């Protein structure tokens, strides 16, 4: 019976673990529960700043999950416990509204812009009209280029429209690297293993990322507008309601969005 003490210590360890981790989450939930927010990945830096200011001002906390709008909307439709969705494409909000999963039709909070990003050392020339990019693709000099997945990421869909407009979509196919969402596309584009990518302006212009390369704004007329709409879901609690209000009406929140390159809805 030599191994007995070992058995006892393992059992004790397991009990300790359950005691430490088990009821804790329940206790945390009993206090004022932070609102669970689902947000499009292009908002990663801007919304983190807004949420920080919101918590300081109101004492209420939010927890934000970033992803592609399509993915997040699907999860909400399948019953994920999010209380609010900030989508990058208003159609996902409309779909959820039709399915009866939201409170009202939501509100337009920003219009997004795209940027062409090239990391330091990339041979991609960045001019306002992207002619240098066009010829680089035509000459086969672009071997790796990142965009978000056009299937379920609005910024990927807009990037595809830009590439089609430039007439390089077909030619670029073998070089395309698809990010799961806009922020992963940004990560790929800035990683140095891609020559560049078409990414949200809000990410490319964030200080942490702007330091990794250069970017050029893509004219808003080159793709269908990225009308970003937010909505409370049917299960929204008071903290989520307050945050919804804050993003919509707080002047600081509007300034933050504008600083990250978003166009604000009229009247703000």
């Amino acid at each position: 019976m030599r191994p007995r003490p070992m058995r006892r210590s393992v059992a004790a360890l397991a009990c300790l673990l359950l005691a430490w981790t088990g009821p804790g989450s329940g206790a945390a939930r009993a206090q004022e529960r932070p609102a669970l927010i689902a947000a499009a990945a292009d908002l990663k830096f801007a919304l983190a700043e807004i949420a920080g200011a919101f918590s300081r001002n109101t004492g209420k906390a939010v927890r934000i999950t970033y992803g592609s709008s399509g993915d997040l909307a699907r999860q909400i439709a399948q019953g994920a416990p999010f209380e609010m969705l900030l989508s990058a494409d208003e159609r996902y909000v409309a779909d959820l509204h039709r399915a009866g999963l939201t409170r009202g039709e939501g509100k337009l909070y920003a219009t997004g812009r795209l940027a062409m990003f090239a990391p330091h050392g990339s041979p991609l020339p960045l001019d306002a009209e992207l002619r240098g990019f066009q010829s680089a693709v035509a000459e086969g000099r672009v071997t790796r280029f990142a965009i978000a997945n056009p299937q379920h990421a609005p910024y990927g869909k807009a990037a595809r429209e830009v590439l089609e407009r430039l007439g390089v979509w077909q030619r670029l196919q073998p070089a395309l690297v698809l990010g799961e969402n806009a922020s992963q596309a940004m990560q790929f584009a800035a990683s140095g293993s891609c020559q560049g990518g078409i990414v949200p302006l809000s990410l490319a212009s964030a200080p942490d990322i702007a330091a990794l390369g250069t970017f050029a704004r893509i004219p808003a007329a080159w793709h269908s507008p990225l009308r970003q709409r937010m909505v409370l879901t049917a299960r929204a609690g008071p903290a989520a309601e307050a945050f919804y209000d804050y993003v919509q009406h707080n002047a600081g929140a509007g300034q933050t969005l504008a600083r990250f390159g978003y166009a604000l809805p009229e009247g703000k």
Partner: protein
Amino acid sequence: MEWDAIRLSLSLAGWTLAILLPAGIVLARWLATARFAGRHWVEGLLALPLVLPPTVLGYYLLVAMGGTSSLGRWFQAATGTTLAFSFTGLVLASLLFNLPFAVQPIQRAIEAIDPDVREAALCCGMTSWQTLVRIELPLAWPGVLSAAVLTFAHTLGEFGVVLMVGGNIPGETRTVALAIYDRAQSFDAGAAGRMSLLLLVVSFATIAVSYGLGNRVPGTRRRR
């Protein structure tokens, strides 16, 4: 470091162990001693998570737990929350993808016990349960411990299934593995690096311990 995520991962691993280990012992004992036609199909089914792409398992679990399945509807009626994207759903998924890690080491250890020992115990009037608890488990203990260690480490590390079934919700389903993915996407190389190092050290330590146990198995070798 996201302590929330670390705590959640430990909690998930703890619950998985607490439920799966007893069930694994019973299953392993049955597989090690029973002889019946089609046994390899049962063993194959239990080993399936080893070779199945996590996305396949994740997809079926998502379908099975969704609001349109009877399991999903029953859970929602009972608790008011959906099974998918909840911690309970994650535990359920974790039980499934850990089955081979829990069962196989125990099964091998019980198989290594000389059948004469078991027969002697039965001849002495012990019931099958008594034999399991008082003879087989003490002998097969290193196998049980290595099953526990593997299950624990594997739960901390599982990514695909957790992402599909759990949906990366902070404090509810965002485990360390998902937090690393999230931090890396947010250009937070510092946090991603620290949590990766933590998982690397824990995984290495657990695997080394489990190999150490495998080499030091008292009294379970066949003597014939």
